[in-house]
């Protein structure tokens, strides 16, 4: 049995005290325990940023890669061994900025994996520059006169781009977040969990209280996640009331389902000792 203790690491998180990342780590560990997945069959892939360090603080297999590239790495982990449970974690800068191209294509592919985005609407580890989800007008170190662009709407983007499970949660509500992650992992296909998270050091606008006062749970508001158009409508809500929970969910064949090469056995379990290329050479005679 997996429990919270075995997931602990010797190194302790070095996020700022009060950072929303702690809530995400606790919820993730809770989800792993609840799902009872063996540690060695989990791979957590991250990019760069405060979020990128997360795999170091949970005892599962992990790969802390480079900025914005967690999704291609994680996708191929799954394709190489589809018996594994694969997570990608990243921040709003990592996933919606530098990694945006991979984000869109990963959703289109619908590989069975869960993508958790620590969305604090600011760049934290680089000390407070604008992020793709920073609101228009927000003053940051890189936008002292205010952000000119409109923010990315990851939920709307995900619904329109092919993600088959699209959810948002809040790091300040660990119970909700844990349940959302559990549902995301149970879903067969690409699951996005966009997580509102306070950055106590650099985002003094979108604080814990800011989120807390605004979020409401879609599941208690009668939302039907099977309805794509309603999901899209809900994704446009912003302001005094912001929905969290599962916006959209649909079952579609996964990318792996379409690959007869891995139907019987994952790639890593296929023998490679003496592959006969005699017939292949004959094709060229």
């Amino acid at each position: 049995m997996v429990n919270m203790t075995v997931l602990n690491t010797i190194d302790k998180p070095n996020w700022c005290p009060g950072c929303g990342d702690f809530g995400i780590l606790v919820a993730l560990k809770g989800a792993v325990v609840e799902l009872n997945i063996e540690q060695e069959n989990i791979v957590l892939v991250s990019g760069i940023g405060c979020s990128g360090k997360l795999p170091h603080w949970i005892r599962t297999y992990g790969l802390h890669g480079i900025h914005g590239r967690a999704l291609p790495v994680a996708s191929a982990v799954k394709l190489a061994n589809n018996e594994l449970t694969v997570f990608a974690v990243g921040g709003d800068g990592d996933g919606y900025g530098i990694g945006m191209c991979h984000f869109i294509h990963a959703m289109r592919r619908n590989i069975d994996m869960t993508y958790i985005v620590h969305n604090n609407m600011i760049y934290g580890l680089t000390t407070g520059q604008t992020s793709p989800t920073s609101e228009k007008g927000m003053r940051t170190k890189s936008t002292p006169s205010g952000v000119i662009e409109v923010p990315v709407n990851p939920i709307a983007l995900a619904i329109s781009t092919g993600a088959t499970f699209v959810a948002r949660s809040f790091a300040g509500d660990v119970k909700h977040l844990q349940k959302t992650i559990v549902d995301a992992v149970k879903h067969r296909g690409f699951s996005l969990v966009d997580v509102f998270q306070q950055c106590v050091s650099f985002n003094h606008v979108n604080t814990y209280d800011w989120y807390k006062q605004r979020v409401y749970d879609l599941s208690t508001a009668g939302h039907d996640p099977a309805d794509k158009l309603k999901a899209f409508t809900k994704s446009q809500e912003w302001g005094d009331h912001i929905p969290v929970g599962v916006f959209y969910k649909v079952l579609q064949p996964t990318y792996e389902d379409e690959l007869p090469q891995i139907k019987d056995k994952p790639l890593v379990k296929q023998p490679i000792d003496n592959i006969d290329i005699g017939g292949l050479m004959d094709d060229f005679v």
Partner: protein
Amino acid sequence: MIKNRLTWKIGGKAGEGIMATGMIFSQSCSCGGLHIYDINEYPSLIKGGHNTLQVRVEDREIFSQVKGVNILIALNKETILLHKDELVDGGGIIYDSSEVIDDKEMRKNIRFYPIPLNDIIKEIGAQAIMKNNVALGASIALIDYDFGIVGEVIRDNFKRKGDKIIDENTRSAKAGYDFIKKNFKNDFEYGLEKTGKPGRMLLTGNDAICMGAIRAGCKFYSAYPMTPASSILHFMAAQERRFNIVVKHTEDEISAINMAIGAGFTGARAMCGTSGGGFCLMSEGYGLAGMLEVPIVIVMSMRPGPSTGMPTWSEQGDLKFVLNASQGDFPRPVLVPGDIEESFYLTGEAFNIAEKYQTPVIVLSDKNLAESHKTTEKFDEKKIAIDRGSFASPDDLAASSDTTFFKRYKYTENGISPRTIPGMKKGIYTGASDEHDEEGNIREDADIRIKMMQKRGRKMMALSKELKQPELAGPNGADITIIAAGSTKGPIKEAMILIEKEGFKVNYLQIVYLNPFPSEKVAKVIESAKKTVVVENNFSGQLADIIKEKTGRDVNKRVLKYDGRPFYPEEIVTAIKEVAHG
């Protein structure tokens, strides 16, 4: 009549099926037991422009193109104007008689074979695209080759398209054949006839790389299309279900290398491929694989830069780039095949080195080698034996702690640490792109940094002891020693044959492992050589610079070519004579 020594060339607009027609010719020669070396030239566009395929045929093994075309099929007037001077005396041009040829534009001592291609097509009720086949058939008649073999090749090539297509192709070629036999004297000076045993493969360097990868157990290939590496993607994709390989055309090269890293980390043998521009995008991932100690193979197939450069032409201008791409020092073996056989065996070796030394390995090719066909004996697949390196033993795993991460980056004498992959109980670790300790935990302590840099560095030292040292080919005590790497091997070998006939003694040192560089051996060779020249397809003499950096020695002459075209043996002969006399 000079038998079994000629160069056949076809030229016309892109999209006219020139390459396909050329392949039928090449295959027909190969099926008759003859040896082939071909070279294509084409612009980066799909329809129009000027395309050529040049096929050299002999009854001995040949290694490159040579100067002098014996028979030119000109599917348009432009081909005649551009290539008439390449024809040898007595050579012939086959062209559409509807083209108006102004005699003043022509050169002397060649023969003209105007053929009413359109009329013939109409007469036999074939489609316009079959003109190529009529011209092909005409060339077969001219060189007096066995038409039966051509018919067999056509049948074989189009068998999936059905009898009607086979028939149309065959009839077109036969009509061209008959036209020449009926209307021209049988006195062309160059000919071909069946000889020896057929059964050789006709393939490119890229084909050989793919075969080597498949044999070596490559289970994952990711790439974004880019000439001249695209045909690797096509080959691997076509074979993915036959050999259970997942092939992914990714959104960009960044994704391609990061996917290969994901698959390699998970324990599948993984490869990605690209050319210089794509490798720019891969550079960050290249360093990541080095830092994570994840085995991957990267095929880097060079074309002329900078930037988009000349997309469909050849150069060796990225030697320094691959040696220096990505930030920081990390073990980065670079293998440079010189011909099709080496493309096969070195790709197999690259996978073994990657897993044994847990690092990214580059196979460095170029368009010239990647896309030229050569008749090649079947490979000895047994020579690619799988060595997966040091996976953690059950004892290693049993001894590991239940509360810490596995020591995936354990300090060892040769720098190689026991490797675990996801799914292995008690092998759990997190690999980090940050500097890390033996367990992969992020560390910035000075002593850990030093130990970890040295650990990774020792892997390269261990590898350099394992690799075969380059051998001098050719006579001892040569007047000139050529040092070169990569696809220049073919023209150099041909040049050595030519120059020997003129009484010069030339030998040749081929650098196969660009990194770790065989410094001692190269230094010794330069020291004892009378004169040394490097032959390379780039502007500045990058290999000569690397030799200088690694050995402290200068070569006497840099023979450089950077017009996008490969060396012709004759050019090397001229350059060598200059050095010898100079």
